């Protein structure tokens, strides 16, 4: 029996051929007959659909707001002229035509603020103050009645500015409510617990449409004579309460995933209930549910399109109104819908990418 001596093995590069394109194709798309089959079927579908769609939407499309050309191209090419023709109506709704620079500036400001709020170095207390200022400026610009701006009632607000306003405000207001409700459902005090549970269950039990109906038609019936609350505000409250219930459940899921030991350790260090929530529980719980929170935000954003049933003309409502009012362009409504679908998609996709970035940041700080 001889002692084997240690033979060092020099490092070798990894085999490369598996990374070449043909090898990759073979492995991922044609690995066995099932994979190959589905690759062929899906490939054929794409080959059939994509060229047709590109042909319709780009090559044969009519871009100018030229009704004759559009009619001639019907069935062959898309009529993007309808968007060119109705652009300002779709984007700004019934807002007075000559004053539309106001919603433009207000919305640009709000969007800039939203983007700024997404960057980490700006997460400082003054950001909240800035938000209040930006919202105030937004309202002054939109409503007017001061600084030489003419008054524009809220029922004339519409289009993209209204969509963004509704989504932003209901998210901003729903989030703190949701935090409180989520914590409340785990409270030691039965009254608080029951109240929060009731709230969540009641709201979850009805569709958003009926909440909006109640907010805009039923609520005024119970108000004392002569006292009216603007429909925009009532709808905002309705949407906020609705969003908060769902968000609260998402957050509660995160809270439940925090081990009891974390809370006990914090308690033995002398931290108070609120300090424990703020410093230990919420940072971990929220980080855990970032994808679901953003998912809720995306839902809220898209749900704003329901407000048209209570005669507020958000982006979707404004499109309907713009095109239904004009019999000439009505046949090209589909193209209008595709256009606003693209706008919704851009917003939702940005949110989803941002959520992925946040997740990465969170995991980084976990050291995993």
């Amino acid at each position, binding site marked *: 029996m001889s002692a084997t001596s240690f033979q060092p093995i020099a490092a070798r590069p990894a085999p490369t051929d598996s990374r070449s394109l043909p090898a990759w194709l073979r492995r991922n798309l044609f690995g066995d007959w099932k994979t190959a089959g589905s690759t062929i079927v899906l490939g054929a579908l794409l080959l059939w659909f994509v060229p047709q769609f590109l042909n319709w939407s780009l090559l044969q499309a009519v871009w100018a707001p030229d009704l004759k050309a559009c009619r001639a191209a019907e069935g062959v090419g898309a009529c993007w002229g309808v968007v060119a023709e109705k652009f300002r109506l779709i984007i700004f709704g019934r807002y007075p035509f000559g004053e539309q620079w106001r919603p433009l500036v207000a919305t640009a400001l709000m969007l800039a603020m939203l983007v700024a709020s997404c960057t980490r170095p700006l997460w400082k207390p003054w950001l909240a103050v800035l938000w209040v200022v930006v919202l105030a400026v937004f309202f002054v610009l939109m409503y007017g009645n001061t600084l030489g701006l003419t008054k524009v009632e809220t029922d004339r607000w519409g289009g993209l500015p209204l969509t963004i306003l509704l989504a932003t405000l209901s998210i901003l207001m729903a989030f703190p409510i949701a935090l409180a409700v989520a914590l409340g459902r785990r409270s030691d005090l039965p009254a608080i617990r029951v109240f929060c549970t009731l709230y969540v269950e009641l709201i979850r039990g009805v569709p958003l449409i009926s909440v909006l109906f109640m907010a805009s038609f039923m609520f005024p019936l119970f108000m004392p004579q002569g006292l009216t609350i603007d429909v925009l505000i009532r709808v905002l409250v309705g949407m906020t309460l609705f969003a908060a219930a769902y968000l609260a459940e998402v957050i509660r899921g995160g809270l439940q995933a925090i*081990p009891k*030991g*974390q809370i*006990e*350790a*914090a*308690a*033995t*260090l*002398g*931290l*108070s209930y609120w*300090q424990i929530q703020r*410093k*230990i529980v919420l*940072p*971990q719980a929220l*980080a855990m549910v970032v994808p679901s929170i953003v998912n809720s935000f995306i839902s809220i954003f898209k749900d704003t399109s329901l407000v048209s049933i209570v005669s507020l003309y958000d982006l979707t409502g404004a499109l309907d109104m713009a095109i239904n009012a004009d019999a000439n362009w009505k046949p090209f409504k589909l193209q209008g819908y595709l256009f606003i679908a693209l706008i919704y998609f851009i917003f939702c996709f940005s949110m989803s990418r941002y959520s992925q970035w946040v997740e990465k940041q969170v995991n980084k*700080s*976990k*050291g*995993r």
Partner: protein
Amino acid sequence: MSDPIISFDKVNKWYGNNFHVLRDIDLQVGRGERIVVCGPSGSGKSTLIRCINRLEEHQQGRLIVDGVEMADDVKVVDAVRKKVGMVFQQFNLFPHLTVLENLTLSPIWVNKMPKKEAQEKAMQQLERVRIAEQAHKYPLQLSGGQQQRVAIARALCLTPKIMLFDEPTSALDPEMIKEVLDVMIELAGQGITMVCVTHEMGFAKAVADSVVFMDEGQIVERSNPHDFFNTPQTERSRDFLAKILGH
């Protein structure tokens, strides 16, 4: 015993209505005394020491910690928690904070210490447990033994009079147990009162002033380590010792 720092007087506790987990507990711990609590699983050891910093409430009897009688009163609980540090079996470090932030959290937020000072003190504690070079890592980047030493340093940052340990080495791989026990032995030499639930009999022999043996919610026996290991007083303690010492 004159002026004990911890004093249980006929303490009883139930979980729910019919699970009597602590039964007529009488226990005095003197200032600077080091007690090891042992006993079979489920005998109520954790519950006993968790009463000392009010992670659990007792329902009958009196429990006095450093002159304060334990009661359902936020002020009492706060006062007691400032005096009592605790180390858990599962470390319970905060994974979203760095090691240094774990240590400075309570001094900054509870004791309102300036951040700079808190960090300096924290670094001293980390040096004490020989882990200062890891200050800026996150807990999950450390080994189990290192994490437990951080947890000990974190508890020490409040300069407690009493340290509670609940099976601090049970979740560790064998090669890491020693590094944690060494830190605890060093601590034991520095006059702090220690109540330690552990089955590390080597540790008990080396530092404990007395060993408390529990079974079925009762304190069965309390003696000094020498007597406990050589001439256990009861059948139950003999059985228990036979099991854990493996003869």
